[in-house]
């Protein structure tokens, strides 16, 4: 894989086909990120690690274990089992290693592991990526896209805290409208390509 190919994949996955804004994956943690205590940063970084790791593990499990055994149809079950174990391990590890992050994330911690972005990217990379390196890069760039978008979104929400809006739109509705505007902006990147 050449540098240009990696760059092309990065541009496509981060900007043109952002998993949150165009694929609607991981919208749950995305909408819950706020600027308070840098939740967005912790969420984004943890999800970067988990998505990369999980898409690698899922790709390996799907292509090395289940396909030779003829059990492709049980991929979802195996993925979920793996994800649950990963989530338990990560919860334990963060409690021990990063008590600060554990306190900030609090009850949203399970949401960081078990969400549609992690599983969706793993399923998509398992289907679409021909080799392990592509799968790992796909997971990494998807997570970076998520990090980028949630950084933008968190900053916008910081501004929103000090602005007035109709009472019915307070809270999540206005955040969703903001997210819609962000998505509309990202539509400008659609079709972005380096390599033909």
């Amino acid at each position, binding site marked *: 894989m050449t540098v240009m190919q990696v760059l092309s994949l990065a541009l496509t996955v981060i900007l043109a086909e952002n998993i949150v804004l165009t694929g609607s994956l991981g919208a749950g943690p995305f909408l819950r990120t706020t600027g308070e205590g840098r939740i967005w940063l912790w969420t984004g970084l943890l999800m970067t690690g988990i998505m990369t790791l999980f898409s690698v593990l899922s790709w390996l499990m799907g292509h090395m274990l289940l396909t030779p055994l003829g059990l492709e149809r049980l991929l979802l079950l195996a993925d979920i*089992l793996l994800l649950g174990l990963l989530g338990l391990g990560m919860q334990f590890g963060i409690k021990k290693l990063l008590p600060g992050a554990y306190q900030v994330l609090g009850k949203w911690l399970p949401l960081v592991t078990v969400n549609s972005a992690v599983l969706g990217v793993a399923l998509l990379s398992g289907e679409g990526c021909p080799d392990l390196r592509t799968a790992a890069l796909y997971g990494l760039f998807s997570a970076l896209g998520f990090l980028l978008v949630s950084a933008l979104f968190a900053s916008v929400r910081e501004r929103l805290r000090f602005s007035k809006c109709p009472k019915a739109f307070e809270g999540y509705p206005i955040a969703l409208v903001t997210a819609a505007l962000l998505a509309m902006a990202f539509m400008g990147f659609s079709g972005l390509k380096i390599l033909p």
Partner: protein
Amino acid sequence: MDEKRPEDLLPIPEEPDLGGGAHREEEVWDFLREDLPEEGGADASRADPPTRPEGEEPTRQREGGAKKGRRERTASASDGWQAFCSKAGPLIKEWGGKAWAGLKIAGRYLALFLAFAGAKLWQFLKFAGRKTWQFLKFAGRKSWQFLKFAGRNIRRFLLFAGAKIRQFLKFAGRNIWRFLKFLGRHLRAWAIANFALEPAKALGVLLDGLVLKNPALVLLMGVCALLGATSTLRGALGLGLTATAVLLCAEMTLAFLRSIVPERLRVLCSLVVTALFVTLADWGLEVWQRELWQQLGIFVPLLAVNWIILTRLNEFSCRHIPGYAAVDGLGTGLGFTLALCLVGSIREILGTGALWGVPLFGGETAPAPGFAAPYGGFLALAFVLAGAQLVKNLAERRGRA
């Protein structure tokens, strides 16, 4: 045994001029053959005088001593008879004596043997008869005994068996009835323990799920499905009903397992149970609703990490009986379906100008094509949530007033 041989018993006269028995025999036959034509007289083929003497010539000359008798024989029948007698007499005597001696010896042996055999046979017959008679007597006595015994005992056995069967039937009847009552009581107890619902509470749970704590509209969960699978009403309704079915099954399963699953494995367990039912639902959709399955794509498997389902499993199923879990699953699932359908119909109407594939504004006109794009999901959901908040605020104001 007698050591004497038949030759010793009977002295055989010596015959000096003849070599062996074969010659003598031949002569006897010669005589017989030559006599026949004279006595019959009518045989034409045999009566051929000139050829016969010539053919006989060598034998006659060789015999020598018997020549005279042979020539005289042709003269008359009595001559022939005398010659025959003089010639055959010694032979007959000799042979007869031998045969007689043999017969006597054989007879003696035969008599001895017969006597012996007869005695033995008689002995055997006597013995066999006695034994047969004994056996018959014995067998008769025994069979008679057996029949007497069997008759007596078959009757006893039948009486005994009848009594036992009657006893068993009485016992079984009583106990089957008791067993059925027991089973019924326990089934009823089990049903009451697991499915007895107070109507008011059940209605409360249902309303909570459907409206008051609607997981999508009030708590904003399952956003991924709300955004991704709602570009058409058909897809939204299909996903909502699938989610309802999965939620119902998973909640009931986990409510049955709630006493077994330890606290710290609860999340993992609910994840696995959800994944199991989502996998089944995925296969079911692929088989029976292939078009819908293709349209929904990745969003059906993603139900396995839907936080509406996981939250209800973790917070509700683990503390309630399966009956309430089922009601909650139905209510929450239908509430989610309601939200999905609202967003889906808004997006379909505004984005494509149709509802359930039926054009509303005539032709291809779409009021706001952007609602079909991914960002339209965010917008539509924002308006639906705003509407829900508006209703909630109005209701609160009316309650306060």
